[in-house]
C-alpha cells in the first residue's frame, strides 16, 4: 500500500489524456487543477521512503519525502499553477501537454530516491520542454530547439553513464550525498552542472529561453535549472568547488545582461546569476547555507516567473521584447509595469521583498564561514543584479524614451497570474516566517535587523544613484539592435570553422600525396611499357628462334647430366 502517491503520476496521466479532451478552456481549467492536487498530495505526504517497486532487479523509489524534496515539490506545484494561469488562453494541445509533462517530470525527479528514476524524469524534463520552444513555429525556433535538445539529452546521457560507473563501484543506485572522487561521481556532477548552467556550460539557457513561446518561457524558467539546484543540494552539499563555480556564475552574466537587447535574454542571464548564489550556498553546505539555497530557489522561481511574465505580456501585446524597440509603455500598461517593478524589487533584494529574506541567508553563511572574497563577490553581484534586472528591465520597457507604442494592458488572466505572483513575492518579503518554516533545517534567522536593512538600502540606493549619475552624464550604454557573442561562439562558429579549415587542409594534403603517388606509379607503368611494350627495346629479343635455341640448350644439358649419371 502506497501512503504517498507520487504527484508526478497525476501530471503524466493527465498530460497523456489531455489532448483527447475537446474544448481549449476545459483543458486549461484541468491544467489549473492538476498543480493544486499535486500541492495537496505533497503537503500531506508522510516523511520517508515510499512508492517503491522492483525494476530489473533494482529497487526504485518514487517518493523520498523529506523537507528538502517537499519545499522543491511545493514551489514546482505553485509554479505550474501560476504559469498555467498565465497561459490560460493558450489552447494549443502540444504546449498544454508539454507543460504538464515537463512540470510532472520535474516534480518526479525531485522525489526520486534513486539515480535511475532520477534519470528517467531528468530526460522527461528535457524532451517535454523542447516542445515549448518548437511551439513558436519558426525556423529559428526549430534550430534553437535542436541545440537545446542536444545539450539536455547530453546531460541525461552523461548522468546515466555516471550512474552506471557508480553502481559498478559501489553496488548502489541510491541518490544520496556523493563525493567527487571517482569518474562516476564526476560524470554525475557534470550532468547536474550542464542543467545548472555552470560557467561555459551555460549558453543553452540564454540561447533557448528567449526563443520559446510567450508562455513557454515562463514555464521553462521555473523547472530545469532549479531541478539541477535541487540535485546538487541533494548530491553534493558542502563540495568546495561549488563555492567558486557559484561565485563565477554570479559575476560574469551581469556584464552580458547589461548590454543585451532582448529583454527575455537579459532575464536568462539574470537567471544564471541567481543560480550562482544558490550554487555558492550548496558549496558552503552548512545548514544555514543550504537553507539559503532552498529559500532562494523558492523566492527566485516566483520573481523570475513574474519578470518573464511581465516581459512576456509586453511581447504578447507589441510583438517584441527588444529594449531598443520599447519604452514609455507605463502609460498604457501600468499594471504590468507595477508587477514588473515588484519582480525587479524582489530580485534586487529590496527589504520587504522576497529576495531580501532569501539571499541574505546565503550571504550570511558565506560571511560566517569566513569566505570573505566570495562574500565580496556576492555583494558585488547583488549590485549587478540591480543594474540589469532591477533597473534595466522595468526602465527600458516602461519608461526611458517613448517608443510611441500604445499597447493595451495585458489580458485579464495574465494580470491575474502576475498579480498573484507579485502578491507572493511581497508576502514572503513581509512575512518570511512562512517560507522559513518550510526550509530543510531549523535555523534561527532574523533578516530584519537595523544593520542588515540599512546596509542593504545603502548598497541599493547608492547603486541607483550611480545609475542616475551615469544616465545624466550620457555614458549609460544605449540599447542597440545587435547581439553579443558568448562562449557558444566557440561551438557555433569557431569549432565548425576549425573543422572546416582542418578538413580543407587535410584534403589538400591528401590530394597532393595521392597525386604524387599516382604520378610515380604512372611513371613506372609508362617506363615498363616503354621498355617491355610492343615497341620497347626488350620486345626486339622476342623471336621464337631464340626460345627454340634455349630449349635445345636445356635438352642438351639434361642429356649431359643423365649421361654422367649413367657412368
Amino acid at each position, binding site marked *: 500500500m502506497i501512503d504517498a502517491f507520487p504527484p508526478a503520476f497525476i501530471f503524466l496521466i493527465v498530460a497523456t489524456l489531455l489532448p483527447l479532451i475537446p474544448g481549449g478552456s476545459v483543458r486549461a481549467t484541468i491544467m489549473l487543477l492538476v498543480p493544486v492536487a499535486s500541492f495537496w498530495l505533497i503537503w500531506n505526504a508522510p516523511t520517508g521512503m515510499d512508492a517503491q517497486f522492483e525494476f530489473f532487479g533494482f529497487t526504485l523509489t518514487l517518493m523520498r519525502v523529506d523537507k528538502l524534496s517537499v519545499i522543491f515539490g511545493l514551489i514546482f506545484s505553485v509554479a505550474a499553477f501560476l504559469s498555467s494561469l498565465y497561459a490560460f*488562453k493558450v489552447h494549443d494541445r502540444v504546449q498544454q501537454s508539454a507543460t504538464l509533462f515537463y512540470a510532472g517530470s520535474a516534480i518526479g525527479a525531485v522525489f526520486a530516491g534513486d539515480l535511475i528514476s532520477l534519470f528517467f524524469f531528468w530526460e522527461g524534463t528535457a524532451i517535454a520542454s523542447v516542445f515549448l520552444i518548437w511551439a*513558436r*513555429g*519558426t525556423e*529559428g*525556433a526549430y*534550430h*534553437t530547439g535542436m541545440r537545446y535538445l542536444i545539450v539536455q539529452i547530453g546531460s541525461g546521457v552523461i548522468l546515466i553513464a555516471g550512474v552506471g560507473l557508480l553502481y559498478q563501484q559501489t553496488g548502489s543506485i541510491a541518490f544520496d550525498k556523493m563525493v567527487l572522487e571517482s569518474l562516476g561521481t564526476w560524470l554525475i556532477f557534470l550532468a547536474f552542472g550542464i542543467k545548472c548552467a555552470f560557467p561555459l556550460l551555460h549558453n543553452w539557457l540564454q540561447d533557448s529561453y*528567449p526563443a520559446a513561446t*510567450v508562455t513557454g518561457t515562463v514555464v521553462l524558467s521555473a523547472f530545469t535549472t532549479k531541478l539541477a539546484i535541487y540535485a546538487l543540494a541533494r548530491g553534493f552539499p558542502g563540495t568546495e568547488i561549488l563555492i567558486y563555480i557559484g561565485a563565477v556564475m554570479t559575476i560574469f552574466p*551581469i556584464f*552580458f545582461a*547589461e*548590454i543585451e537587447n*532582448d529583454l527575455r535574454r537579459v532575464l536568462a542571464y539574470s537567471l544564471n546569476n541567481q543560480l550562482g548564489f544558490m550554487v555558492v550556498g550548496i558549496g558552503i553546505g552548512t545548514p544555514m547555507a543550504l537553507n539559503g539555497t532552498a529559500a532562494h530557489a523558492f523566492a527566485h522561481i516566483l520573481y523570475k516567473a513574474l519578470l518573464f511574465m511581465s516581459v512576456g505580456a509586453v*511581447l*504578447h*501585446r507589441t*510583438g517584441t521584447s527588444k529594449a531598443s524597440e520599447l519604452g514609455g509603455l*507605463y*502609460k*498604457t*500598461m*501600468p*499594471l504590468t509595469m*507595477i508587477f514588473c517593478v515588484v519582480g525587479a524589487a524582489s530580485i534586487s533584494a529590496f527589504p520587504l521583498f522576497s529576495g531580501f529574506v532569501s539571499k541574505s541567508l546565503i550571504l550570511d553563511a558565506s*560571511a*560566517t564561514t569566513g569566505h*570573505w572574497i566570495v*562574500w565580496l563577490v556576492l*555583494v*558585488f553581484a547583488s*549590485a*549587478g543584479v540591480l543594474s540589469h534586472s532591477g533597473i534595466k528591465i522595468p526602465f527600458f520597457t516602461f519608461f526611458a524614451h*517613448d517608443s*510611441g*507604442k*500604445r*499597447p493595451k*494592458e495585458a489580458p485579464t488572466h495574465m494580470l491575474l497570474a502576475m498579480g498573484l505572483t507579485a502578491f507572493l513575492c511581497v508576502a514572503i518579503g513581509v512575512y518570511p516566517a512562512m517560507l522559513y518554516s518550510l526550509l530543510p533545517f531549523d535555523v534561527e534567522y532574523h533578516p530584519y535587523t*537595523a*544593520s542588515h536593512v*540599512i*546596509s542593504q538600502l*545603502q*548598497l*541599493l*540606493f*547608492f*547603486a541607483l*544613484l*550611480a545609475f*542616475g549619475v551615469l544616465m545624466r552624464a550620457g*555614458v*549609460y*550604454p544605449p540599447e*542597440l539592435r*545587435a*547581439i553579443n*557573442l558568448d562562449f557558444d561562439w566557440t561551438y557555433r562558429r569557431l569549432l565548425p570553422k576549425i573543422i572546416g579549415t582542418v578538413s580543407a587542409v587535410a584534403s589538400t594534403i591528401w590530394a597532393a600525396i595521392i597525386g604524387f603517388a599516382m604520378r610515380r606509379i604512372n611513371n613506372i607503368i609508362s617506363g615498363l611499357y616503354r621498355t617491355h611494350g610492343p615497341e620497347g627495346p626488350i620486345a626486339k629479343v622476342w623471336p621464337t628462334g631464340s626460345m627454340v635455341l634455349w630449349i635445345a640448350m636445356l635438352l642438351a644439358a639434361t642429356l649431359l647430366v643423365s649421361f654422367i649419371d649413367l657412368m
Partner: protein
Amino acid sequence: MSDKKIGDDAENLPWLGRKLLWVDNPANVKRVFQVLILICIGLFFSDFIYARHGKFEFEQYWGFYGAFGFIAFCIVIFGAKALRTLIKRDEDYYAPHVVDTEEYPDSGLDKASYKDD
C-alpha cells in the same frame, strides 16, 4: 503624430497611466533624482546613529556599503561597455538559425494597441 496625442490627451489611457504622466516631464525626472540624492545622504548619515553588526572589519567603515554599491555599479557599466566593443555583432550574425532576426508569429500573440481604435 497620433501616437503622441494619445499620451497627451490622456483620455484613452488607463487611470493609473494618466496618474503617472508626470514622469514624462524632464523637470520631474530631475526632482526624482534630487530626492534620490537626499535619500542617499540620509542613508550615509544613518551609519552614525545605530550600532552596526558586520561580520567583517571592513564592513564597519562609514559608508562602506554606499561606496561599494556606487563603485560596483560603475564597474558593471564600464565593464559592460568595454565588453560590448569586443563582442557586439549584427543581429543576423547567426541567422537563420536563431530567432533574433525573426518576427514573433502573430498567431501566437494578441497584439492590441490604442492606435487600432
